[in-house]
């Protein structure tokens, strides 16, 4: 067998499929090497896409023509918008997936892309020539040549599963692991580290007493991610909420030492934001109970995912403990929970285009960079795919900055801080949070989609119209007035007036577009019945002042981002720069002064010296 590709993607997880898809759509011949071709974009853990901060990523991925949004819209079983009581900047969509259907959808989607070939194999060795990637050797000994490689190996790179004292070499229970690839990276000189994550047992839904649990229905209207999703006969499935009991606490606490997390069997760092149940009882000892969400894994299955009960306790203890949870007294476990350790490459080793500094043409995306989560992986896969193509075309890399996108925040965090614990997004990581929202993902991303030809012309045009209609709507909100007697409590704030404009009303603290909607019935049909237009208009009005302020901050920020530092810049010659700073700069190789200033441990003085040096030697430093 002898193959040749423009781009080789190793690993068909969430990162891998986005990378393959986008590079194929940008006209490159993509080869997707993965262990099991039927498991593309399989959800290893929670059957859900989105959530706070992560959903922003999904919207951005979608606006850049990625597949995650489409796949989940087509196969979701429950759609919700979180944080609605808070402001639009942090509204977040979370969708419960039909795990198998999602996986099938992606398998078919990839099959239909004529530029992608899926190769079922285990990638074992990276081949390089003069510091550039030139091919991949599978563990069977097949050689595949290429000009770029994107590694999206997820939790499989050196994957080791722990269930109680039992250890299994695998990235997911019942699957294989990639050990040779780790060795190959090590041989090339990459620094490898180890991280850990975990998953709860899966339950047989027929053995659960849902009457004892709280019902959590989906939202209507259904908040799809994409703007053209239509599923007329779709009925949402509910989730349930239940709680652990004092008995649960007693059992888990008694068996702390049987968990590999405490016994010393696992030393690697796990996600602090997603602790195992033993971790929760251990660290928050004064908390009597913990909530669990019971989430269906799909329509055609009775399997239930107990969100919040991640564990690596021995199977029989998992069994005993979970039966003490309200409603789960008779529950049967279908698959045990477990912890998994895997290799990653601390991200100081990649550039902001996700290409490694060590080997040109080699890109990393997803877990290998220290992140965790499907959305984080998919986002990086997409960015790596685009950048691999740009690399082949010898074009400037595509880098989003922190003020433009959560994609930018994430990659900047990775490349300037080089995470040492599993990284996930939160909205609080984004200092320009008010400016980068779910609702304006297209406003922010479409110009790039246009540049790289990632989204249909028709969609782009439809969006232009939406933007125009939004301004009309804003005009209407400004010009239409409402009598204060219709405004209830809020109306009392305007003692001296008979009526106020809808704009003024919206600007009142505590008033949201959701308060406005019922009032619009009083006006004779001028207002758009497109809820999205109304929301966009309302956000525009309500946050005008803040966004303006934020924009000023962004302008300052951009100035620093635009002060670029040449890639091969030599820091050793800068007199006056502390050795420690020289080392840090050399290790991270920031692309701009802005990035330089965000590197951990770098002081203002260091950046100042660097800045002066760059200014002074502007003419002699080749960019």
């Amino acid at each position, binding site marked *: 067998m002898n193959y040749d590709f423009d781009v080789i993607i190793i690993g068909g997880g969430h990162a891998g499929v986005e990378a393959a898809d986008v590079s194929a759509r940008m006209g490159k011949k993509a080869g997707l090497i993965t262990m099991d071709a039927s498991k593309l974009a399989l959800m290893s853990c929670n059957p859900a896409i989105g959530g706070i901060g992560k959903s922003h990523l999904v919207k951005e991925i979608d606006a850049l023509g990625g597949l995650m949004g489409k796949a989940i819209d087509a196969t979701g079983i429950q759609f919700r918008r979180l944080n609605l009581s*808070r*402001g639009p900047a*942090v509204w977040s969509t979370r969708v419960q997936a039909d795990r198998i259907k999602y996986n099938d959808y992606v398998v078919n989607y990839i099959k239909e892309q004529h530029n992608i070939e899926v190769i079922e194999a285990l990638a074992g060795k990276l081949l390089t020539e003069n510091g550039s990637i030139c091919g991949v050797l599978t563990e069977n000994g097949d050689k595949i040549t290429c000009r770029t490689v994107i590694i999206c190996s997820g939790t499989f790179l050196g994957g080791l599963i722990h269930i109680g004292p039992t250890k299994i070499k695998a990235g997911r229970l019942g699957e294989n692991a990639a050990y040779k690839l780790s060795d190959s990276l090590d041989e090339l000189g990459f620094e490898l580290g180890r991280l850990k994550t975990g998953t709860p047992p899966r339950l047989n839904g027929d053995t659960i007493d849902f009457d004892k649990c709280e019902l959590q229905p989906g939202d209507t209207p259904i908040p799809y991610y994409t703007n053209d999703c239509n599923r007329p006969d779709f009925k949402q499935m509910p989730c349930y909420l239940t709680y652990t009991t004092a008995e649960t606490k007693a059992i888990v606490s008694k068996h702390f030492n049987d968990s590999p997390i405490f016994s010393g069997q696992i030393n690697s760092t796990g996600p602090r934001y997603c602790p195992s149940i033993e971790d929760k009882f251990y660290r928050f000892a004064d908390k009597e109970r913990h909530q669990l*969400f019971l989430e269906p894994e799909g329509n055609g299955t009775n399997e239930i995912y107990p969100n919040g009960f991640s564990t690596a306790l021995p199977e029989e203890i998992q069994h005993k403990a979970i039966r003490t949870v309200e409603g789960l007294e008779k529950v049967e476990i279908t698959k045990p929970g477990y912890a998994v350790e895997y290799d990653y490459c601390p991200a100081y080793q990649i550039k902001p285009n996700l290409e490694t500094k060590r080997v040109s043409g080699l890109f990393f995306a997803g877990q290998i960079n220290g992140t965790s989560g499907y959305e984080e992986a998919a986002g990086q896969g997409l960015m790596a795919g685009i950048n691999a193509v740009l690399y082949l075309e010898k074009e400037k890399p595509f880098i989003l900055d922190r003020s433009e996108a959560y994609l930018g925040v994430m990659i900047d965090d990775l490349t300037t801080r080089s995470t040492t614990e599993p990284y996930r997004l*939160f909205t609080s990581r984004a200092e320009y949070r008010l400016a980068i929202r779910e609702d304006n993902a297209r406003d922010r991303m479409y110009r790039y989609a246009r540049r790289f030809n990632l989204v249909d012309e028709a969609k782009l045009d439809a969006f232009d119209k939406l933007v125009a209609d939004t301004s009309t709507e804003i005009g209407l909100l400004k010009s239409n007035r409402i009598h204060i007697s219709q405004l209830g409590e809020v109306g009392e704030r305007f003692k001296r007036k008979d009526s106020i404009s809808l704009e003024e009303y919206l600007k009142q603290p505590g008033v949201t577009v959701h308060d406005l909607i019922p009032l619009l019935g009083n006006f004779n049909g001028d207002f758009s019945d497109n809820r999205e237009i109304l929301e966009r208009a309302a956000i525009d009005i309500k946050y005008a002042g803040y966004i303006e*302020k934020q924009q000023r901050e962004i302008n*300052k920020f951009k100035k620093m981002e635009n002060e670029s530092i040449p890639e091969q810049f030599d820091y050793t010659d800068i007199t*006056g720069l502390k050795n420690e700073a020289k080392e840090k700069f050399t290790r991270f190789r920031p692309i701009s002064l802005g990035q330089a*200033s965000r590197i951990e441990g770098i002081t203002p003085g260091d950046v*100042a010296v660097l800045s002066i040096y760059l200014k002074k030697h502007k003419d002699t430093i080749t960019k």
Partner: protein
Amino acid sequence: MKNILLEDTIVAIITPPGEGGIAALRIAGNDARSILSKHFKPQQKNRGVKPFLMRFGFFVDDSKNVIDEIMTVYMPAGKSYTGCEQVEIFCHGGRQVVRLIQDTIIGSGARMAEPGEFTKLAFLAGKIDLTKAESVAEIISANTSSSFETAREHLLGAYSEHIGMLREQLIDILAEIEASIDYPEEEIDPKDQEKLISDFDDLLGKISELKKSYKGGRIINEGFKIAIGGRPNAGKSSLFNLLLRQQRALVTPKAGTTRDYLSEWIDIDGFKVNIIDTAGLRKAGGTIEKEGQKSAKSILKSADLVLWLVDISSKGYKKQIETDLQDITNNHILKLYNKIDKSASSPEHPDTDTILISCKTEKGISQLKKEISARINATIPDLTAGVVVTSARHKQKFSNAEKMIKAARDKCLEKESPELPAFDLREALKELDEITGKVYNEDILGRIFAKFCIGK
């Protein structure tokens, strides 16, 4: 032409504190000219602001009250020291007048320049040349070390520690709010509203204390200001010369000798003291004298201590004192009965805050010095007891932070959605960080030049 290096318009006093009869302010930035136009009233209507032409007129506040007579010059963008649109204003010295002018300009939208910011702009505009990067690095780490500075350094340790503590408190509140955003489904016990608000109030209280400390702290930085006032011929200039130990001011038997004020620096008990001789106050007098009296009044108003001189050899002086002092709104007045050598009999027991002196025989002068020294010590904050703000720039940052924290507090109280108070608190954090320099945001160069003095 908009200047992209500077988005705000900045202002600072560019003459050193207290020296000379004239002080200068510089405004730079895109609104420099429009701010000047708002506050400058040319003496002759047809002589308004024109590039590079020095103009004479009045600086007026928002309600068109004249603050001072000024000379001013405007330089368009690209053609000034800073490369930005720039205005310079020359007014009568006297910190209070200058500060009033500066405050008015800030009120019209400018912000206080960071230390060294003009220099930084000049550098960026290619107007000055920084020869060596190394020398800059040295500047960054350089420390001055006069004994006064040492005391300040000592203070600074406690100071930045204190700000660090405020910062922690602020971050605590912020974290509380952020958690409720990023974990809406988790069962984080949201601190109840009451507790949150009381945390806010505690923090605000501390910041307000700090701001208050600036009242005394300013004196550490700018010196203690003593103004000598009184009727013409009371002996003000004589006393001024006596305290300076040099014949600095003209002394003649003629009333109305001093027409414009004089300002000098002396050292009392190791403190910088700014001493000012003013024109004598009386109803009569020509235009020039009247102008002199006007500035005298504003100086007397703003002084940390007024020495009110009375010639007890003149008739009816007792009665005059009360009416004269009614005009002077200052709580720190010390009455000095001068020329006791002339008076046949010493006055019947004077009031408590009165000292009997003779500039001729120097009787009572040492008692006067002791009294001044006591008053300074009472005003200067106890440097060992608490944390004191001495810099106007810091005070402005605290005010800004306070404003943002208050806004956040009110929003929490009104149950506004939490990302808005979070935004305000992050802004407040930035203000604090700009004092300690902990977080490096964007103004790289600003930090370098922070070791330069403002306006250099």
